[in-house]
């Protein structure tokens, strides 16, 4: 199954790289100084790779959080780490930092919030799913209040940037940024894949999992930290792209069943492929019309994802 999904991801990448508002053929791209080569190297390849990484991070983290919290409504943004990352970004934008430093601020925000949420949610000696969930939700609300506060005092240009951060937007990034995001996402993804067998036990309930020899506290921490780092990197590079992390794990569950050993890797691969396709749509749908402009990719993920998901759900029930 994973071989099939990997092939799908490769197809998506090929499509994303070969598909754009300008027609670019591979023979044109052979010219080292040509426009076609520049479009591929600077615009399409980094962007398609970033879309794949972000999609992989959001979908696999979403699946992991659903297991961790035993809550089907969990998405990668539920545990507050995304709020911390977004707040870091917004502060960076507010202080007019260059983009690289805005990303650093975002990632620092993610790590700080991850550590504080983890610390706060476990103060009474135990760290159950509900405490973690509530801490995350409340922390998010607090971060968003601060974001709106910053938004109220910045200039119109900065407010526009903040808006795009909140609705999620994949912009062209240099390969250096892509490599950094890749390091965090891939290590998180493989860790989650490695833990996926124990996620099955976790879904039985804490007591059952413990009686089966799982150190629930350690497992929960491992899932939380590896997924959070991925989400932090994703939000730092492309804002809060919605729906992928909620809908892809559920779609995988409906298609292939709820075994996390399949669910987590499959979610990551399908999420990556889906976001690459969605971004190709966001880049090109309107570009050759009279209303030539790009769409934020979050528009496509929900517009396409929601009906697709309902279709799946109907077919299943």
């Amino acid at each position, binding site marked *: 199954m994973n071989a099939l999904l990997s092939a799908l991801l490769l197809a998506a990448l090929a499509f994303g790289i070969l598909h754009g*508002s300008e027609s670019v053929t591979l023979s044109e791209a052979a010219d080292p100084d040509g*426009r076609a080569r*520049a479009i591929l190297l*600077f615009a399409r390849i980094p*962007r398609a790779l970033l879309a794949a990484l972000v999609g992989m991070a959001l979908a696999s983290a979403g699946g992991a959080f659903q297991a961790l919290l035993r809550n089907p409504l969990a998405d990668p943004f539920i545990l507050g780490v995304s709020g911390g990352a977004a707040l870091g970004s917004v502060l960076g934008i507010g202080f007019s930092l260059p983009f690289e430093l805005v990303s650093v601020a975002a990632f620092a925000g993610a790590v700080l919030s991850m550590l504080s949420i983890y610390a706060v949610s476990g103060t009474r000696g135990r760290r159950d799913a509900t405490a973690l969930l509530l801490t995350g939700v409340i922390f998010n609300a607090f971060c968003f209040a601060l974001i709106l506060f910053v938004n109220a005092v910045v*200039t119109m240009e900065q407010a526009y*940037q903040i808006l795009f951060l909140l609705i999620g937007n994949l912009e*062209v990034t240099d390969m250096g940024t892509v490599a950094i995001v890749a390091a965090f996402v891939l290590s998180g993804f493989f860790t989650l894949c490695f833990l996926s067998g124990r996620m099955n036990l976790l879904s039985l309930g804490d007591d059952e999992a413990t009686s089966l020899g799982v150190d629930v506290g350690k497992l929960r921490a491992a899932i939380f930290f590896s997924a959070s780092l991925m989400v932090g990197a994703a939000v730092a590079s492309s804002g809060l792209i919605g729906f992928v992390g909620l809908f892809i794990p559920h779609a995988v569950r409906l298609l292939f069943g709820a075994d996390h050993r399949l669910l987590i890797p499959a979610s990551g691969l399908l999420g990556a492929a889906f976001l690459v396709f969605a971004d190709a749509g966001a880049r090109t749908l309107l570009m050759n019309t009279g*209303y030539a402009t790009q769409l934020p990719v979050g528009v496509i993920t929900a517009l396409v994802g929601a009906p697709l998901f309902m279709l799946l759900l109907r077919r299943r029930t």
Partner: protein
Amino acid sequence: MRRLLLILLIIAPLAAHATPPAAAPSRIVSLKPSITDVVVALGASEKLVGVTKYCDGPEGAAIAGDYTQPYAEKIVALAPDVVLGSEENSSKRSIEQLQRMGMRIELFPFTTVTDTLTSIREIGRLLGRSGAGDALARKTERALVQLKARWKDSPRVKTVVVWGLRPLVVAGPGSYIDELLDFIGAENAVRGTKIKYPHIGLEELIAMDPDAIVDLSMGSEASTVFSEVEKPSGKKSGGGPWEDVNSIGAVSDGRVISLDASMFRAGPGLPGGLATLGEMLHR
């Protein structure tokens, strides 16, 4: 019913006559930097009691609003004779709110050069300085005509004007800056969209292959030190995504120009700002 109409017909002209032409206002609130510039240029800066956060002076005037939002309470406290604003800036609701509070509001458009010249004249009239207003409008217009003549025979510089980097937002056809480029021998490389400020990708920018990129993404917040500073080629130009893309003519020729957007503010300062940009583009 008919009698009522008759009465109205008789009363209406009387009522119109009953209101004398408003005396020249002595306390003015300006809700747009362009308007503040005009009032100052007409020598009435001492009458400005309130301006926006983004206006240049005058000293002593209170801050009475930001881009879109007039601070209603502040404005009431300033007790102006008239509030000058523009439809394109202020939200309709806040204008209506001020009107309900009994404020006299006058709106002046500044979205095109023609609008701008008309608005300069009308603000002059409102201030009781029609002569000065007409003269300022004529002077501004003459300077623009001269600019056009200056670059008449030069090759057109294909230009992309960037408003924001993330997202990459550029000035499209029909936008305010699009009209201005024509005065300085430049043409907008962004075409074929009905959206005034489209969000494009690096891909489209590479395909447009502009001769020059004018980066206004610092908005009007760029410090005066930053304005008019041209980034020479080879140096980082403030983080635009085009930085390393040498297939773009503007990048390989080093014609990426970062400027303060307020240089192109509609009003009496416009020809000066445009002249500076013109020299940079045709260098």
